[in-house]
């Protein structure tokens, strides 16, 4: 056992070469394990500004690290690795690598907004979680999830018709995620509903699937909305790319 308490060292800081001979001595395997230093060597001073350009992240720089957000957090109660206070600090100092280590849990925020309600500096931590999740997505750090596929299908229908059709959302979602169109839970749902003979409901469902009704006087609303969202994203993207000198702070 070359290194004591090895379990306390992050796996990505341990480097071991399977085959290594030094000065004729075979030091393969754990004999050559090196531990990379854990100190921080720099800040990305532009990172907090970039996060501020995502909706919800506008106040991230106000944080003074009291920890009220983490203390009040619904998700933290379930998973103590979920620490908004910590991520906000990392954001403000631009310690991106450390944020990326938690990319698989940041999005699990349930938006209960207890943090935002309790925050003495109006940082709006719930918004920061959203902004971070969007940044992770935009930078390609997180793959498209089932949840985002669902959201896109849902939003697409809203743009198109001003409303959603449950059956269509569900079927398209199952298709796009390569799932069976007849999962056991859906069959069970159908069976139970059929006991009540929902004739009118079934008629509506059938008609709506065929005719795709739109909200009254929806007109070009969907197009306009879609264009607005696209424009806003473009503006935000440009602001992010702008050199620091051009934006002051």
């Amino acid at each position, binding site marked *: 056992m070359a290194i004591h308490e090895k379990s306390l060292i992050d796996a990505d800081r341990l480097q071991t070469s399977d085959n290594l001979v030094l000065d004729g001595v075979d030091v393969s395997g754990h004999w050559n394990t090196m531990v990379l230093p854990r100190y921080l060597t720099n800040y990305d*001073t532009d990172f907090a500004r970039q996060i501020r350009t995502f909706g919800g992240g506008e106040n991230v720089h106000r944080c003074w690290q009291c920890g009220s957000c983490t203390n009040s957090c619904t998700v933290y109660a379930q998973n103590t690795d979920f620490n908004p206070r910590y991520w906000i600090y990392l954001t403000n100092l631009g310690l991106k690598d450390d944020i990326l280590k938690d990319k698989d849990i940041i999005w699990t925020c349930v938006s209960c907004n207890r943090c935002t309600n309790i925050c003495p500096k109006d940082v709006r931590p719930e918004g920061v979680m959203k902004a971070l999740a969007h940044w992770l997505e935009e930078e390609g750090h997180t793959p498209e999830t089932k949840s985002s596929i669902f959201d896109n299908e849902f939003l697409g229908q809203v743009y198109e018709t001003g409303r959603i059709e449950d059956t269509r959302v569900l079927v398209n979602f199952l298709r796009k995620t390569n799932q069976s169109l007849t999962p056991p839970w859906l069959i069970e749902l159908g069976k139970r509903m059929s006991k009540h003979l929902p004739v009118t409901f079934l008629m509506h469902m059938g008609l709506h699937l065929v005719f795709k009704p739109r909200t009254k006087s929806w007109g070009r609303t969907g197009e306009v909305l879609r264009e607005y969202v696209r424009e806003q994203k473009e503006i935000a993207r440009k602001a992010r790319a702008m050199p*620091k000198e051009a934006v002051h702070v």
Partner: protein
Amino acid sequence: MQKTVLVVGAGPAGLAAAAGVAGSGAQVVLVEKAAKLGGTPILSGYAKLVPSGEWARDAMGRMVKRVEDAKNVTIHKETKVTKFSGEAGNFTATLSNGTTVQCASVILATGFTHFDSINKPEWGFGSYEDVVTTTQVEQMVAAGKIACPSDGRVPERVAILLCVGSRDRQIGREWCSKICCTVSTNLAMEIKELSPTTDVFIYYMDIRTFGLYEDRFYWKSQEEFKTKFVKARIAEVTRSPDGRLLVKGEDTLVKRPIVIPMDMVVHAVGMDPNEDNPEIARVFGVGLEKHGFIDRAEHYTNTCGTTRRGIYAVGAALAPETIDDSISQGTAAALRAVADLDAVVQKSA
């Protein structure tokens, strides 16, 4: 019975005391060891004062003018008190310029001395040109340009280290210097105003911007000027091969050591007891408290009193103090000293 009050020191506290006594109609003798009146804000070349935001030369200028214009104030510059005797109501002071002053009471407004950063060599002052003190940055702000002393470049990054010469048992400074947090957050804003592309980091153990300084300085600096606050007491400042400075320490919030490049490091120097305090204590026969500041008498009925009857102390002579509170204390002591001119008060005091 003497109708004169001797005021020693012509900084904010001393000028306020002199003006207070003069306003009552009594005679004032004001003794100042420097060649100029105005005290540390003037002698150290401070820029804008906290919290008024007024330029030091304007604010102190008005205080100086008020005292210079008063007919019943006699001013001795470049002068010290060398001999002192008598008792409350009838003291005799001999000045270094040979003058003898008869006075009823004395107000010591002898101020403080900035901590000399040389005494914390691990933080690089004296070794690296780009390690400076808050006083030097005040002077840069007053001159209107923030630049690294080594080569004149505008710093991309400035680190302000708090508690330099304060709250440090290693060097026998067990006090908080009270105003450095506020001054530092203010300087961070002034740096940003002069150089909007500079990032300012404040390395802190605690932030003590008490009272109304909280939102006007700490919050404003963070929220409007994007000053970054890093919870770390820096262990060492060194130089990297590319000539920039490296601040080393532990960021206690991420629980990791840090070695971060900076262009300029600013020591937020604390307030030491005036380096002349041993001499002042000997000449005037007043006691010093354990840190070396002038010791207080019972405060509730003898405001600003020292351990010797008839001698009062105000401002940073007593403890690290803000300019505003020094002025208030100067005025309070003036009232007390004027009351001493009245024999009735002297007997019952």
